[in-house]
């Protein structure tokens, strides 16, 4: 009987010890993780590196989408008009641009555009990034606009023409105002895509969020925490913008109902 009790006591002690060990292990682990992230954020004001990188990421994306819209609108108009008026060579040029951009990796484009175009020490890295990504984005924006126009029921064009409007006026007064409701959300989406894609900007010596995180990692010799911090930044921004976008989209489609 005594033996039995001792047995239980022993078992109990072993159990408690086990729990303690696990608990202590867990605490140590938490502390290590905490330290890792602390190191990745606080010393040398490292958080500033992320903030600066984030600023670069956002600014480049924003300027790139603006440039992309400019290029995309021109290309889309040229393409639609040249196919309507049967100017083959112009259609072909537009298609070549679109196909090259969509047929090669962004990273390769980036390196080529960067090395081909920029020759001055004083060009701001934001401008460099914006131009490279903008040229890329233009092709996608052109396709977004084309798709937006084509999504409008062709009965609308017919109704406009049958009232006596010419092609251009029908486009301007009837098709485009409707197409914009499809195009705007898609452009918002393209902006979100750009934010993610600018993460390769590091190859052209632009210090965006990703590159900043890598840099912090090469300083702390602990690469994961900065990367996870960067990933969280991206996630918050991308999901936040997505949510905003869907609210905006709902507004737009509600606008239909007034």
């Amino acid at each position, binding site marked *: 009987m005594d033996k039995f009790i001792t047995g239980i006591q022993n078992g109990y002690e072993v159990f408690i010890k086990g729990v303690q060990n696990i608990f202590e292990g867990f605490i140590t682990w938490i502390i290590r993780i905490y330290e890792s992230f602390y190191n990745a954020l606080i010393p040398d004001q490292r958080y500033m590196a992320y903030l600066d990188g984030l600023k670069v990421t956002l600014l480049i994306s924003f300027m790139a989408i603006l440039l992309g819209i400019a290029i995309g609108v021109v290309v889309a108009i040229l393409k639609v008009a040249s196919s309507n008026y049967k100017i083959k060579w112009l259609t072909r040029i537009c298609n070549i641009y679109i196909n090259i951009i969509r047929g090669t990796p962004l990273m390769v484009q980036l390196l080529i555009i960067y090395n081909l175009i920029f020759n001055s020490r004083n060009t701001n890295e934001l401008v460099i990034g914006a131009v490279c990504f903008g040229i890329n984005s233009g092709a996608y924006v052109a396709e977004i606009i084309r798709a937006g126009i084509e999504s409008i029921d062709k009965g*609308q064009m*017919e109704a406009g023409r*049958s009232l*006596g*409007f010419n092609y251009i*006026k029908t486009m301007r007064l009837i098709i485009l*105002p*409707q197409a914009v409701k499809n195009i705007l959300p898609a452009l918002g989406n393209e902006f979100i895509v750009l934010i993610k894609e600018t993460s390769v900007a590091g190859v052209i010596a632009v210090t965006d969020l990703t590159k900043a995180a890598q840099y912090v990692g090469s300083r702390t010799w602990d690469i994961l925490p900065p990367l996870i911090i960067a990933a969280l930044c991206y996630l918050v921004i991308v999901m936040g913008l997505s949510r905003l976008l869907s609210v905006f989209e709902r507004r737009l489609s509600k606008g*239909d109902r007034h």
Partner: protein
Amino acid sequence: MIVTKNLKKAFGDHMVLKGIDETIEKGEKVVVIGPSGSGKSTFLRCLNLLEVPTEGEIWFEDINITDSKENINLIRRKMGMVFQQFNLFPHLSVKQNITLAPVKLGIMTKEEADRKAMELLKRIGLTEKADAYPNQLSGGQKQRIAIIRSLAMNPDVMLFDEPTSALDPEMVGEVLDLMVQLAEEGMTMVVVTHEMQFAKKVGTRVLFMDEGKIVEQNTPDQFFDNPTHPRLKEFLSKVL
């Protein structure tokens, strides 16, 4: 008023209109019937060049509109068209739908067009919908607005392509009523429809199309009571 000479239309290899010679006089109400795919819509859409004929000529008010020198945009103003799917402009209010063409084409001032629109809306009893948007309307209301949108341009002829086919049965009546009114006022009309009652009541002539040709035509009485072509007999036996 409208004359087609050997009108042919092919989509790729597919010959849809196989030579149509037809004359439509001012004031006529021509009803076109025929089985699905026989080319009724294509014929109608050729009349205002929404489809460009492959061969043949179309004359409208003594102008050869298939002649590329003619400005088709000016000619279309004189030809109203009503579609099966209404094709109202969803981003514009009812009143804006009606006034867009007269104002933007410089035919009326904004005030004139507004006045005209309200007049037309009053006529169909929908003045209170002037500031509504198309998707707040029932199908019958949409189609009636589409009709007066065309009327606002003071057309010389109205083309209707199955204007009641997309409507709930309850709404068919109100649209047909408006069309009957128009007919009674003397509007020249070409109507593709499956509403045989309408054909009998207001048609001055009924055409039967089959496989890209007009195979029989007659006054409504003769047409429905004494069909001669076997395909027409079969068709009427099924539909009536």
